[in-house]
């Protein structure tokens, strides 16, 4: 019998596939939908203390193996988000991970406290969005800032906390170690790669924000390398993802050292991403003789 169950920092999931933050995860109904479609856990769109409209359009594009976005973290603010999360927690039937971000450690802690009232299974700290640069630094580029934010949130809430890291750094392992020092219970990696798309005929960047985050199948090698490096450096559970669109992709991510696997852009490449990928993963495990997900390792 193939067992797909995994546990991330005490959060039990019926399969290792986690809906990634910000991909069809803005409202309770969409989180519930992903759960019904077969996700083992779902992550909500990152929310801040106050509502944010995000960047103007164009905010996203898909071309070949890459997706680019500069949504700019639009969200209704922590209070309204907490209401959405309450409904999702009640009806999704799988763990709901709540993603939070802020302009400084205090804001992260404040927003996390509001969100905690909705009783999500875990809080994920988005310290790695590449699209809000002009508002300040990307915290996960700096070990001290990473540690400070994780510590502040851990002090503010009782829930397990995962730090979501960016691949846009020289040494991602160093950041993971800092997150652990701050008290992180898990690591989520990777957020999007910082990138740019220029439309030659418009002679302009396509995204209104000019820069954006790159996701989709094309970034899988970067994601695998990052997760593997994190795994060498810390013994925390890892929600690993970036470009995962198939069961074998998921197996590769588990081999890199992930405990669970996040699924984002795949929803635009597969008709029914969660059901198809988990079925493929089970088939892979069957054919390669793995009984449970945690057995999947590189030789």
């Amino acid at each position, binding site marked *: 019998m193939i067992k797909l169950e995994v546990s991330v920092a005490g959060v039990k999931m019926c399969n290792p596939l986690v809906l990634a933050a910000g991909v069809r995860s803005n409202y309770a109904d969409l989180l519930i939908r992903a759960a019904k479609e077969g996700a083992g856990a779902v992550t909500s769109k990152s929310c801040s203390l106050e509502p944010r409209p995000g960047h103007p*359009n164009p905010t996203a*594009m898909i071309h070949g193996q890459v997706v680019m976005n500069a949504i700019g973290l639009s969200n209704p603010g922590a209070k*309204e988000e907490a209401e959405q999360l309450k409904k999702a927690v009640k009806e999704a039937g799988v763990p709901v991970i709540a993603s939070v971000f802020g302009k400084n450690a205090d804001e992260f802690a404040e927003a996390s406290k509001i969100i905690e009232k909705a009783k999500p299974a875990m809080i994920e700290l988005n310290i790695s969005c590449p699209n809000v640069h002009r508002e300040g630094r990307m915290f996960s580029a700096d070990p001290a800032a990473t540690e400070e934010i994780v510590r502040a949130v851990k002090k503010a809430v009782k829930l397990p906390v995962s730090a979501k890291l960016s691949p846009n750094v020289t040494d991602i392992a160093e950041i993971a170690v800092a997150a652990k020092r701050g008290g992180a219970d898990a690591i989520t990696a990777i957020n999007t790669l910082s990138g740019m798309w220029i439309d030659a005929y418009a002679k302009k960047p396509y995204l209104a924000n000019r820069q954006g985050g790159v996701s989709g199948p094309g970034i899988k090698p970067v994601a695998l390398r990052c997760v593997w490096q994190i795994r060498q450096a810390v013994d925390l559970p890892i929600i690993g993802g970036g470009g995962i669109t198939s069961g074998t992709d998921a197996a590769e991510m588990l081999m890199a050292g992930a405990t669970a696997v996040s699924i984002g852009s795949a929803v635009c490449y597969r008709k029914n991403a969660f059901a198809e990928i988990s079925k493929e993963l089970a088939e892979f495990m069957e054919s390669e003789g793995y009984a449970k997900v945690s057995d999947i390792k590189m030789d």
Partner: protein
Amino acid sequence: MLPIKTKVLKAEKENEKVIRLTLGLQLSGAQPGQFVMVWVPGVDEKPISISESKPTLEICVANAGPASEKIASLKAGDEIFIRGPLGHGFEQKGRKWLMVGGGYGFGPLRFLARVGKDNGKSVEAILGARTKSLLMKKAVCETCFVTNDGSEGKTGTSVDELERRLADKNAKTDMVFSCGPERMMAAVAQACKKHGVPSQLLVERYMKCGFGICGHCAMGKWLACVDGPAIYGEEALSNPEFGKEHQDRCGCKKPL
């Protein structure tokens, strides 16, 4: 899918608020009910329904705010960028069709009426507006004008006229297609349900990506950009947000 550069060939007034732009672009396979993302570099990118595909792409744009005002003020020769066709259009089922449109919503219905005629369907249309100066141009089929103030055609609402026709036992309408203000469409869907006639609507929500990744344009669990914008009336009526609630650019829920 990348945006394609094209030029405005013609910019004509449909009515006081709506401009029809004929573009120098052919989108093969574009279906009535589908939309395109219209990008004016340096301004914005907005979802707009396709109002004709032959001989080239046509869109009808209402001046509703800063971005649509810019799009609606484009002139022949101006350059714009088009990404599409996107979304699911209408299912072209049945033989006897009735269109019920209001505002710029009549654009995609006019396209559907033309395609229906080409395919040998029997097509009629009801086109409503508050007053004469807000009426769109007629479709290639028989088009009944209705204005609230009676300044053109029949006096009343397009839903009154629809009710009259649905009640007519000889009419035998197979499918009602509707696009316009959401409360109007809700009334259309309800009337059709009452008379046992299937309906399809085009539902709009604040849209960002247009291809199903960002999730912003949800109505409940339904995504306007990839599950829609076409939706059966019965399904819409069973969606708790239909006709009641949508979201702004932040994602805050607001009454419609």
